[in-house]
């Protein structure tokens, strides 16, 4: 099976956000970057599918700065075969621009399966996977938490409000991974060593201006300082009174 996984380099979920000097972006000083957690599910799924098929490859593709080589190495250490860095100084805010660059790289690749994360945890766009699928003319199922593939037929399950949607689709296809799809492995020391020798191709790319202009980045409005109503069950009548009379939510 020929499988491609799209990876994004994102700030760790524990990051304390400081706004940069331009007032429009994250101050990256001291920020630890990681492989987007949902992309770990994508890589893991790719590896399992490749190994089950007994042949093929898992290629990982990342649009990002030079430092994203490290992100790609993480996936190689998990077991992916090769990496491609589409190098740019700045990852676009407009996910459609990202999708276009990825599509240009992946078209005519003869992929059986293209895996993305359901969302990147930094800008939470929820869009690159399905946009990529549209650009490539491939069927797509998003936010997949369970996947079965038999030959060129796939069945996927995705969570919707109040239920689970069971979706059938033909391969080749684009799938975006949700939590629950699998348990991503941790790279073993052997994998980390091997990753250093795996091919990693770097290609500079040009990006369009995109259709989203960032005007400002701000910290969220502070929640109004809350208060401790009291201790133990005795505080409950007062809590209920506050919820009714002050917050007016009951």
């Amino acid at each position, binding site marked *: 099976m020929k499988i491609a996984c799209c990876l994004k380099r994102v*700030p760790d*979920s524990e990051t304390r*956000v400081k706004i940069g000097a331009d007032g429009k972006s994250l101050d990256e000083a001291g920020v630890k970057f990681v492989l987007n957690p949902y992309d770990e599910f994508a890589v893991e799924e790719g590896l399992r599918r490749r190994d089950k098929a007994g042949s093929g490859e898992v290629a990982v593709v990342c649009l990002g700065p030079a430092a994203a080589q490290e992100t790609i190495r993480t996936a190689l250490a998990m077991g992916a075969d090769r990496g491609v860095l589409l190098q740019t100084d700045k990852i676009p805010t*407009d*996910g*459609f*621009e990202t*999708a276009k660059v990825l599509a240009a790289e992946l078209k005519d690749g003869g992929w059986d399966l293209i895996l993305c994360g359901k969302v990147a*945890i*930094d*800008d*939470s*766009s*929820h869009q690159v996977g399905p*946009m990529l699928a*549209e650009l490539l003319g491939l069927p*797509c*199922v*998003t*936010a997949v*938490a369970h996947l079965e593939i038999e030959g060129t037929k796939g069945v996927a*399950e995705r*969570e*919707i*409000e*109040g*239920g*689970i*949607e*069971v*979706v*059938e689709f*033909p391969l080749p296809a684009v799938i975006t991974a949700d939590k629950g799809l699998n348990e991503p492995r941790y790279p073993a020391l052997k994998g980390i060593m091997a990753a250093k020798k795996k091919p990693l191709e770097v290609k500079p790319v040009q990006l369009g201006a*995109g*259709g*989203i*202009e*960032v005007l400002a*980045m*701000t*910290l*969220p409005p502070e*929640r109004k300082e*809350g*208060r*401790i*109503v*009291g*201790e*133990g*069950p005795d*505080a*409950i*009548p007062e809590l*209920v009174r506050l*919820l*009714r009379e002050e*917050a007016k*939510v*009951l």
Partner: protein
Amino acid sequence: MTKILAVLEQRDGALRKVSPEVVTGARRLADALGGTVEAVVCAAGTVQGTDQMGRFGADTVVTLTAPAFAKYSPEGYAQAIAERVTAGGHAAVVFSASATGKDLAPRVAARLGVALAGDVTDVAVEGGKVVAMRPVYAGKAVLKVKVTGTPAALSLRPNIFTPVERPKAGTAETVAVQVPAGRVVVREIKAAEAGALDVAEAQIVISGGRGMKEPGNFKVLEELALAFGGRAAVGASRAVVDAGWRPHADQVGQTGKTVSPTLYIAVGISGAIQHLAGMRTSKVIVAINKDKDAPIFKVADYGVVGDLFEVVPKLTEEIKKLHG
């Protein structure tokens, strides 16, 4: 005349709760641009509730029908909506960032060749252009963005755009559309337990964390949910979902659902940053925790320090009195 398209949602022939929210967001743009709102819904036949959309500011409500629309059809819906926009020259297309909207909106945007501002919490018009607020970094920052292309495609975070009465004609129309069956086909929807409300849709969410000690103890929270009548759902932290105590569908947070209920009650949850990511836009937050230094108290409007097994039953009792 400037036209805004509001994409409604239905399941089993009835409009979903996010529909009036989308009309409200679209109306706001239409008012600012001096335009009209056309609401559309894809369905196999008539849809219950479409006659209510005029109340919230829809000038027309168009049901796009096709046999393939008995269930959600990703490719069919995308084609029908993209064609509608191409033919109608709408200035903006507004979706909900529901599970379906998150799947559909990027497909439509890509077909139209435009950017998508997803999961926004506020919209306005500045200098004739749509601007929107988007939470990023799990809600730790907010981006103000201008959508420069046309049409502007947006999806609205559920539960944030409280429907506002803004009566318009709401003239109904049905248009049969030609779409292929599509390669991606929804076979079935396995419904969650009958009557169980989804945490993403409930007005009140009561979430339990590791402090619940064991799965069976969640009945304490279920009893409280029951006391609120049909309005409350029980959610969970990742710790208890990972432990297998609760299904993933109930998880609130960065790798679970984003909820914005009127009232969020966190019980035995410490308030890790990844949990806060999923609930910090709730209108009112109550925390019940035995540790007075738990970080959850920093975001809670009201906190009660104490043993949840004493505090929650008392709360249930008081709520029952209210509704009794």
